[in-house]
């Protein structure tokens, strides 16, 4: 994986080597198989109550990042992408904030340690789904396929953790994050949006 920063058109490489994106349907299929196996490993490591296992989440994140590194995924970080990500936080949190209008916010006790794990897992999901997998699907098919398949994979990942009832919401959230990626050209924007929305969920529950 290559993380780059660009303030304007200048791109400064921070880590990794430049490489071609992995092309083709072969790569897309392989990445989806790898993703499914990463979900399986996470469930096996986490045991009962997988949604509450930091260990399972971190192993899952490590496997996703390993695939991103193997595929030489590039994640350019720019001020524009971060701003777009923050706008994504507002879009993702607005409905629940409106539904809970007038209710007190949840207190911040225990937030810090939880937030670290959540940030790692959410960012890894975005680097893989809206970075590595998106690139492969776009090269093999088109951007629409990259957004839709990424959204379905995103929803599917949450089914063993929370149940089928989250599928409609997670598919739509996946589409929003995919559209952010398409608009900004980098997985950094959906990563900011995803992490920010999860942080928001802590206080809005």
């Amino acid at each position, binding site marked *: 994986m290559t993380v780059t920063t660009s303030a304007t058109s200048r791109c400064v490489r921070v880590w990794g080597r430049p*490489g*071609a*994106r*992995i*092309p*083709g349907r*072969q*790569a897309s299929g*392989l*990445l989806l*198989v*790898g993703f499914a*196996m*990463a979900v399986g*490993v*996470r469930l*096996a*490591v986490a045991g*009962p*109550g*997988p*949604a*509450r*296992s*930091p260990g*399972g*989440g971190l192993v*899952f994140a490590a496997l996703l990042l*390993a*695939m991103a590194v*193997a*595929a*030489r995924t590039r994640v350019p970080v720019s001020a524009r992408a971060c701003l777009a990500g923050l706008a994504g936080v507002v*879009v*993702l949190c607005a*409905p*629940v904030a409106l*539904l809970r209008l007038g209710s007190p916010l949840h207190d911040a006790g*225990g937030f810090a340690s939880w937030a670290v*794990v*959540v940030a790692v*897992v*959410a960012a890894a999901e975005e680097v893989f789904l809206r970075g590595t997998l998106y690139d492969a699907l776009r090269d093999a098919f088109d951007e629409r396929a990259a957004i839709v398949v990424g959204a379905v994979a995103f929803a599917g990942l*949450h089914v063993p*953790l*929370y149940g089928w009832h*989250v599928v*409609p*919401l*997670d*598919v*739509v*959230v996946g589409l*929003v994050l995919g*559209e952010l990626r398409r*608009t900004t050209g980098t997985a950094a924007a959906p990563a900011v949006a*995803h992490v920010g929305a999860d942080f928001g*969920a*802590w206080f809005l*529950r």
Partner: protein
Amino acid sequence: MPTSTRARGASRWLVLAGLLAVAWLVTPQPVPLYDGIGFPDEPYRFVPARSTSIPAATVGEVELKVAGGSNTGGLIVNSKEAGPQISVYAPPHAFAAAGTAPIVLRAEPVPPTPPLPDGTLDSNVYRLSLTSAAGPVTIVTAAQPPAITMRAVTIAPTLPVIEYRATPTESWRELKTRRVGRDNFNASAPGVGEYVLVQRDVQAPTPSSSRGPLYAVIGATTVLMVLVLVGVRVLSRRAAEQQQQQPPS
């Protein structure tokens, strides 16, 4: 950027915002997360409260609509802690009552009264009650039985069991208990009465041999995962080589 492209982008975002609002409305609460680390539990609350900083445990209560002599819809009632220390699932038509007055299902933490069950208590004692203004409430044995889920105080290597007694004068009996989360345990509820999680002192820890299949699955998946990583790497390198061979445009 051309005006038409900008308009297309704006309309796409409007559609997504609308879809998001609808998805939130149809998704049951509580707030789900978009990734996989659930919210941590607050410290266990006891009855009576054991410290001034942690309030006493809360009650779970719900009213079930009655029609045709039984409750009509299935409901889950939770106590108010995060996460709930007790949840009771009331299936449809599981409780019979006269008239149309609602059935009140209540799970209330109560101080433990002797005789206590053998072992160490791993939760509050909860009293489950079913009442109706129209008269007594009975459990319909032909219907799906209600279920009770309790959060344990500890996450111990040995698994606790749910014990039950119908009245405080009866002796406790063990219910068939299954683990449904890291510290959550579930059993069919035979009726109104008292429920508590108990750590059996003599229970043997899980033998390591029973984890053999789990380790085999993790090992096999890890090997496959390595193969996937190698495959992705090879495809990536091949693509880079092809790119280098192409003449600059």
